């Protein structure tokens, strides 16, 4: 299975491209590649579909299913907005009796949108209620908040929380290193100890992991 960071890198690149007025960011310094895993002789991974994807994130990020993702703050992302492209069916009205055989062109866009919704929500809730924070916890810049950049322990524990919540496992050393290295790019052009930078890093790191192949397929 491909590294979870593949899509994260793509997300970062896309985000960087969107900020056209910003200077070109410095290349990331990622940890050395691990040996390629043995390829499956007959891969059968399946798309989780939008409902199961949101149920998982709902349980693991502690956000009620009915609140986790709403378009225009009103329409459920799966039920009302992206049901068919996310592998759902709607037989009685749309006559879609079975999930579409192949992912639609818009399916990855919809998955990304769900992931971004969920991660943005979770970090917003963490900021509003720090005592119940799941991902974005206090202590980024030391006990007194005066450090010039994020504390390594905080980066590591946040990476661990993201992987544990989204993928139900601990990250590898390489995965932690890669997320930590990503902080510098998020901070590009801003002070590294800006709380907004830390919040953005948590949101985007969450997005990178939640939109990874490992999170979307099973």
């Amino acid at each position, binding site marked *: 299975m491909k590294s979870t960071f593949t899509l994260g890198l793509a997300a970062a690149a896309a985000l960087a491209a969107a900020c056209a007025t910003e200077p070109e960011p410095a290349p990331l310094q990622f940890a050395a590649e691990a040996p390629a*895993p043995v390829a*499956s*002789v007959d891969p*059968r991974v399946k798309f*989780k579909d939008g409902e199961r994807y949101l*149920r*998982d994130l709902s349980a693991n990020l502690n956000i009620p299913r009915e609140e986790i993702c709403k378009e225009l703050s009103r329409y459920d992302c799966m039920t009302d907005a992206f049901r068919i492209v996310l592998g759902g069916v709607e*037989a009685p009205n749309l*006559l879609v009796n079975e999930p579409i055989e192949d992912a639609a062109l818009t399916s990855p866009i919809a998955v990304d949108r769900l992931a971004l919704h969920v991660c943005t929500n979770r970090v917003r809730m963490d900021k509003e209620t720090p005592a119940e924070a799941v991902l974005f916890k206090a202590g980024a810049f030391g006990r007194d908040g005066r450090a010039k950049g994020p504390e390594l322990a905080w980066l590591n524990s946040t990476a661990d929380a993201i992987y544990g919540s989204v993928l139900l496992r601990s990250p590898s050393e390489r995965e932690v290193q890669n997320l930590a290295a990503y902080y510098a790019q998020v901070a590009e052009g801003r002070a590294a100890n800006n709380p907004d930078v830390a919040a953005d890093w948590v949101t985007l790191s969450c997005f990178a992991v939640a939109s990874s192949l490992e999170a979307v397929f099973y």
Partner: protein
Amino acid sequence: MTHEQEERWHDDFEPVEGNAAVKQKSTRTGALIALGVSVVTLVAAALAPGAPLIQQASAKPPAPMAFCHAYPDAKACNTGFADCAACHTTPPARNAFGMQVAERLAPGLPRPLSDEDFLKYLPGALKAVEDLDADTDGYSNIVEIMAGTQTADANSIPKTLACATEDATRAAGAQWNVCSYDAAYAFRKVHMDFCGSSPTRADMDGFRKISDQNTRLTRIREALSKCLDSAYWLGPNGAVWNIANAKIRPAHAVKSGENPGPVPLGDYDDDYNLFTWANSDDNDVRDVLLAQYFVKRTSPVKLEQISEEELAKRPRGTRQPVPVEKRAGMISTRWFGAVNTMFTSIPRTTAAQAYRSYLGFDIAKMEGLHPVIQEPMDYDAKGVAAPACAVCHATLDPLTYPFTRYNGISGGYSYDADRLKGYVRVDGARVADAPAGGMILGRPVADLREWASVAANSDPFAIKVTGDYWKLLIGREPDVNDQAEFSRLWRGLKSPTTYNYRVEKMLHDLVLTDAYGRP
């Protein structure tokens, strides 16, 4: 040829006397002559004015059986019939393999070949192309035939699924063991497929700490048992419910009962509930075709049979008018008649939908053809005896006759032995002559109950039931590499000593297959 194969050969070609539905004893020659009727019509269709580009090609209804007679051990011949796609793209147009065979099929004899000549020379033609490679994928035709891959599709090639020893060792220590059944992967997958969400991290970590494989498999079975009762699996709009969508084809606009549409004709909740019932707990899945009762939901995951007294008290728009002794599970419900039979005398759409939904044969794709001598009789004067139509209607019409006594929208969804008399004014006098008996899978049946019984006890039914779940859980149709495991499952579903038509028992073994548990 073994004695058993010889018997099957004769059985396959045993002709049946048209609408009288009387099975005859026959010799092979007699059978060929009988089948020749439909073959001649097909050839005539190919030569008809305006028929584009098919003058030199003709599909032969006996060909799928003849192919399997030549290669009885080929994987494509599990059910005794090869797929038309073995030799054709869209019949009668041939694929690359079919063209190779055609070139060597009695060269010099005038076309079209008679059926006798076709069957006489086909084995030699097949033999002559065995060492060729029609799709130039590096595998000879005979290797692909025996492996079950497509001889005319370069992307379909025999595969070896075993890992090299070194890879197997590495994979065993990796996060995913892609070289064999990975119990941790299967444990998570069972939660996802049957409960609709991943296990908790604590459950997952706890599972990974178990070293004994038997204990791990026991945990997987326990998780499955629990999830089989979940709302995600059994509930409205759940996984089982959604398997039934294509069979029921709900349309809210004409729904009656709870949450009715603007033109309430029938309530498909009855159909979904019966389907879920027959596919759950210790119930017999054949009841989707055989049940003479209905089922209601008392909670999202609790179902129970409805008494006839309660059924009779229902509001008019949700009653099930077919009398108990005439019911045949989901193919005689009010909804099935409403959306399929509607106003027609000879409800071919109804029969075709039942054939497709419960036996997996789509007649529109020329699947499951068992042409009957002297058919189609075209009792309703719809022109189906025209050569281009008769190819399929020689099977479809006799398949349909048992449905002709069941009313759709007109007639109020009831059973009426004299129903067709009411169509004489519209469809002509002959429509009343259409018989109540018909044919399915080459067997005569007296009525819809018998139709359903033959269907429910057939191999295609077990294959379709197992295949529906296979596709849902494995994520694709069973392919050539799955045949051993897939065959064991559907045969087990039929076996009284294995699963005895209990879907949940079959699923307990499905989740332990390599196809399910190898990432």
